[in-house]
């Protein structure tokens, strides 16, 4: 068998039904084990996780290395990426507000220290605040933001980890021109692009074209689907767009869903054409909404990867 050029990682959103209601996999060692077994059973090679789980890693597994050991004990290779979900706030943590930069830089110095015991590929960030906290999105603000991430990227590069940006449809940098401007301002050595197929699609940006244009900057993917494009003020809905937009109660679906808007075959073809090698992360955020189910969504998504996408490129 020829060497695989693509491996599949699972971004660890997860819920299962416990005796007292829905729980996540961090609920107990038992639920974590059941989660990892299921991920492994359908053929994922590794997982991605969130920074805010660090405390549970320390509390329950002795830290990131201990947790990665738990992952490996279930036959998975390792933790590939982490998502740094920050609480953006104009007062103290906002990439387009220079006064807050020192705090953000310090946050990354501390965070990377925690992760230094294992080897990650990427630390993923949403590069801007919520849209309504950044608008109007000006070239100046984009430039200030880019400068911040250049510095953060330098810090993470010191740990051998790439800083990569994930553009939520509701964040300040989500339109095609703003994304292009942002990458023009950032240093390719320090700032990469992480293509989330659904988020771009919701923001009316063609993820395939975006990827083809910036392929040399791309350090990873979230493959997930959506059935809806944001309309009107969906991307700037107060207080929240992700769960509370009036038009849409559930934005995200696993790939392979009927009526999905992402053209994954075209995406995979582009991945092949660019000779991308490495990890693709599968994500389906909030799969349990509206009667959905994480186990099933994960199996169906992995089926799609095995039966449709790997036919194109593997």
């Amino acid at each position, binding site marked *: 068998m020829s060497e695989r050029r693509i491996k599949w990682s699972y971004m660890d959103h997860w819920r299962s039904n416990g005796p007292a209601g829905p729980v996540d996999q961090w609920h107990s060692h038992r639920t974590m084990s059941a989660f990892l077994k299921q991920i492994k059973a359908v053929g994922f090679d590794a997982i991605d996780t969130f920074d805010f789980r660090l405390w549970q890693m320390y509390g329950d597994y002795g830290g990131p290395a201990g947790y990665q050991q738990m992952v490996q004990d279930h036959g998975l290779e390792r933790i590939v990426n982490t998502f740094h979900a920050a609480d953006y706030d104009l007062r103290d943590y906002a990439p387009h507000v220079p006064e807050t930069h020192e705090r953000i830089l310090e946050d990354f110095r501390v965070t990377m220290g925690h992760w230094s015991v294992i080897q990650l590929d990427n630390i993923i960030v949403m590069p801007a605040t919520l849209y309504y906290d950044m608008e109007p999105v000006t070239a100046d603000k984009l430039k200030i933001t880019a400068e911040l991430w250049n510095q953060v990227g330098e810090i993470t590069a010191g740990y051998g980890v790439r800083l990569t940006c994930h553009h939520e449809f509701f964040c300040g940098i989500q339109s095609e021109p703003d994304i292009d401007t942002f990458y023009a301002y950032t240093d390719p050595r320090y700032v990469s692009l992480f293509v989330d197929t659904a988020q771009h699609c919701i923001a009316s940006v063609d993820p395939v074209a975006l990827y083809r244009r910036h392929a040399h900057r791309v350090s990873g993917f979230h493959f997930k689907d959506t059935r809806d494009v944001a309309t009107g003020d969906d991307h700037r809905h107060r207080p929240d767009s992700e769960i509370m937009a009036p038009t849409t109660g559930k934005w995200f679906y696993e790939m392979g869903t009927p009526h999905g808007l992402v053209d994954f075959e075209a995406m995979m073809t582009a991945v092949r054409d660019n000779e991308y090698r490495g990890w693709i992360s599968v994500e389906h955020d909030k799969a349990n909404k*509206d*009667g*959905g189910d994480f186990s099933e969504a994960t199996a169906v998504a992995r089926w799609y990867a095995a039966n449709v996408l790997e036919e194109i490129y593997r």
Partner: protein
Amino acid sequence: MAWSKWSYMDHWVTETPQGPQPPSFNRAHMDRYVKQLSALGFRGFDTFFFYLPMLAGMYGSVPAFERFLQDNGFDKITGIFSAYPYATRYTAPHVRETHDRIFADCEATVRAVDGLSVENFIVMPSTTYFQVEPVTEEKIKVMADLWNRVGRMTLEHGMKTTCHFEFWGAIRTREQLDLFFSHTDPELVFFFCDTAQHTIAGVDPVQMFRDYRDRCTGFHFKDTHTVDEHEAYRTPPDPELMAPEVTRWFYEMGTDGGLVDFPALMREIVASGYDGWLTVEHDKAELGGGSYAEATCVAKWYIDNVLAEVSR
């Protein structure tokens, strides 16, 4: 005085350690179910014929189950639903040769509740449309003959045979409904108004009630968001759960997008002097992440907060 004769049609699903199951799963779940309905203030209980043996098994007998209901604030079992949704060579209301068998089944069901004061014997008068079509006057007459015969029998047991028309049944348009009622004896065969089913079939339930007031013995108050515009009703193998365009037909009262004008119907009912039971039903409430308990709360909330104003 607000309307107090509300009953609940037994479609409930509850979470069990073995997955989502009907409350007949075991006695403990059945008890919990009755308590929940009791908390909402329902006074009547409608159920399916096939649950009667299970209820007898769990409570010792059907009358013992009814006593359990009464201990929880109910008046009684109000209706029994019986149906042959799917034509087989043994049972198909439009096939005269199967009538003896259907009649015998109905008699057995009715006997199982002898001694109680169940009021309605609710039937689907036909099977799926696609198994009957072409729907002719002759076939409607055959079905009418069956229910005349069953109706006479159930009256002898104190129950009225009353017809509940599915949107996917062979009697669904206003013309077919009128034809069916013209062939049935008003003394023997009655009308049961399901607000959602008629609406999906493009028939106005309020007008149906107005026109058949004298034969109406009950209602299923449930809602829908969709009128069948794709001939789902005649699409094999099954329109109810498998229609390509519509994944969920039925909703509880009080949802956004509901098509049934319940206040108008309620006004009509009050004005007419109707004094029977009004039944809440919500079939498949769990589709799309819903729950029966919650759907029942929202529907009863609607009754007490919206319909109560109308019927005052």
